[in-house]
């Protein structure tokens, strides 16, 4: 067994008083059955804290550690089911289907059917919902009032974490004393209950001040703020003194209550000091609630307000670059294989294909040059064009020569142009400067010479073929 010191959770002690007063505070109109964490604008604990409070609350009657759910949705479902029953005005109870329909209508969205069935079965087993008639196979149910009271208690645990019960207990003790009809034993019992609750809260605060992280201490400290517990305890003490003069035992009980309150206040002040010290140094704006900031802005003196931002550094709002988000972004993109894709075929249009037009023009030009060359050859294998060029004049000679040079350099065209080196100069002619030019055909088979060897024929391409192979 662990020897770690443990402290009693105040919520466990609150349970008895809370159950007793639940009926007095029950709001059968269902206005308090709001969602978890949003009750009537009052400050509530978080869902996690509420469920933690609940675990401490039911610990005295729990059969195992898992007796209380850790799912806040289950609690919401119980609230809504209770509200459906509470809002029902017809006699004879509700069927399970009607409860489900009412639940859906209340939420505006369909409820998880499986969860509803499971919880309804549990509610029936624990008598939160009861058959209208105590017979078998009854399909109409009513809500057990004790269950509704239990939900109201849960609500109160969710508001201020149960500190309200301390105030309620003190109020009730004052009320019975002021009424004057209570007996001495009942007063002793009330004083003892108040002292116990104060002692437990004091011990819990002491533990939190010493060990809890700041945010947890701030959450607890907020539950205790704006409470005149000191005034309540002293008023109760005066009533006891006035009502029971010279009663040492009651005096002793009342004094014990004051001592418990002083201890509670001392630890509460320690909690406040730690929150202000650490919270102030860390510039944590959660130290105060938004309402307190608003109140301070309206009511605080100017000098005090001017101190608020004395050591506050305000930066421009830059994007927050946390490593987790960076890693998430990296994980969201995976390397991809880049595949080139052919662009889609353009739709048929009236516009001519410019490439095809150029190709046709090129073919036509080549054909014209070839016909011109064939015309110059006049069916022969070669022809001397020097005189023809000389007669063509200028720029006709240049145009003929350019066409022949194109044919000479074109692959697949069976023409060759031999340009001699000797310059022919005639100052009087249209073409004053000319070299001898001879055009030859390359693709026509030559007549075998006297040696009987076949002479090679060729085109302007690099490929050389022989007559026999071509056939």
């Amino acid at each position: 067994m662990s020897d770690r010191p443990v402290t009693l959770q105040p919520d466990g002690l609150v349970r008895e008083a809370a159950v007793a007063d639940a009926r007095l505070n029950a709001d059968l109109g269902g206005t308090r059955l709001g969602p978890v964490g949003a009750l009537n604008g009052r400050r509530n604990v978080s869902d996690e804290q509420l469920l933690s409070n609940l675990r401490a609350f039911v610990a005295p009657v729990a059969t195992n550690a898992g007796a209380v759910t850790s799912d806040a949705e289950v609690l919401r479902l119980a609230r809504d089911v209770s509200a459906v029953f509470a809002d029902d005005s017809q006699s004879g109870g509700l069927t399970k289907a009607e409860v489900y329909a009412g639940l859906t209508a209340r939420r505006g969205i369909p409820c998880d059917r499986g969860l509803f069935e499971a919880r309804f079965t549990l509610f029936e087993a624990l008598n939160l919902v009861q058959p209208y008639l105590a017979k078998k196979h009854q399909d109409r149910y009513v809500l057990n009032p004790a269950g509704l009271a239990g939900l109201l208690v849960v609500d109160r645990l969710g508001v201020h974490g149960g500190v309200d019960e301390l105030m309620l207990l003190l109020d009730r003790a004052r009320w019975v004393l002021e009424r004057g009809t209570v007996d001495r034993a009942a007063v002793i019992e009330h004083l003892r209950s108040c002292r116990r609750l104060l002692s437990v809260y004091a011990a819990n605060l002491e533990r939190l001040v010493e060990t809890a992280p700041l945010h947890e201490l701030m959450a607890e400290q907020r539950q205790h703020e704006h409470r005149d517990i000191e005034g309540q305890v002293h008023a109760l003490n005066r009533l006891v003194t006035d009502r029971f003069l010279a009663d040492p035992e009651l005096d002793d009980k009342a004094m014990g209550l004051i001592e418990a309150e002083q201890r509670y206040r001392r630890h509460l002040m320690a909690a406040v000091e730690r929150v202000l010290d650490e919270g102030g140094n860390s510039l944590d704006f959660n130290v105060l609630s938004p309402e307190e900031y608003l109140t301070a802005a309206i009511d605080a003196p100017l000098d005090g307000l001017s101190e608020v931002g004395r050591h506050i550094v305000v930066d421009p709002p830059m994007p927050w670059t946390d490593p987790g988000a960076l890693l998430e972004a990296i994980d969201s993109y995976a390397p991809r294989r880049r595949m080139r894709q052919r662009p889609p075929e353009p739709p048929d249009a009236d516009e001519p294909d410019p490439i095809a037009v150029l190709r046709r023009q090129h073919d036509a030009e080549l054909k014209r040059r070839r016909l011109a060359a064939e015309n110059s050859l006049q069916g022969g294998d070669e022809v001397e064009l020097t005189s023809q060029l000389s007669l063509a004049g200028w720029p006709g000679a240049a145009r003929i020569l350019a066409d022949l040079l194109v044919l000479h350099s074109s692959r697949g065209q069976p023409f060759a142009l031999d340009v001699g080196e000797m310059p022919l100069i005639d100052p009087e002619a249209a073409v004053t400067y000319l070299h001898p030019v001879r055009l030859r055909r390359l693709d026509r088979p030559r007549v075998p010479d006297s040696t009987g060897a076949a002479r090679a024929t060729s085109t302007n391409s690099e490929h050389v073929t022989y007559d026999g192979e071509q056939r």
Partner: protein
Amino acid sequence: MNLSGMSAQRRAAVLLARIRAEGATAREVASAVVLAAAEQAAAHAGRQVVGCVAPVETAQARPSYRFRPSLVLGWADGMAPSPEDDPGYPIRRFSATQALAWAACLGLAWIDRSASPYPGESFRGEDVVDLLADIGVPSTWVKAALNHDLPLAGLVASDGEWLRLGPAAAALPDATVEALRRFHDRLPRPTGFADPGHLTAMPCAHGNRSSEEDAES
């Protein structure tokens, strides 16, 4: 602003305000006394003044936006906010593309895992664009992040055709750097990064030879 009649504390406050407004301020604008007072005031607020090299404007008639020794505000040890743990206040985050662009810049600049990411190596914006294009990030978005978002946040600074990590990178909290170091190998880099020669490398990125260059020579 005429600061001649101000006390050192007040000049320090002005210096801190200037750093906050500009993102990075030239080191030469503050005397040693004022800088010490500013460091003290910043420490009181959970901040610290961090030195870096950043493109800052100076009062002298020199070419503007030259990289000069500068000052930037960082968080004191353990005082950096942690919005991940406390979602009680809204913060602006980078989009996935901006975060990836920043990760790629960090990956290209921060080669030696054991070293501090700042100042790192210079890199080209084209390398970032190509790197992220390989994993499917549109290049226009990456260019927008490189040209606008990251420089505005001070994470990247332009040095002509080259990019460097900016002053905000110098002021990254230690916890953030340590977290980044844990997945240093997952930062986007071209395949085969072990050979730094495959990248377009600036001949002398910061005036100092890198460890890789030293190893090669």
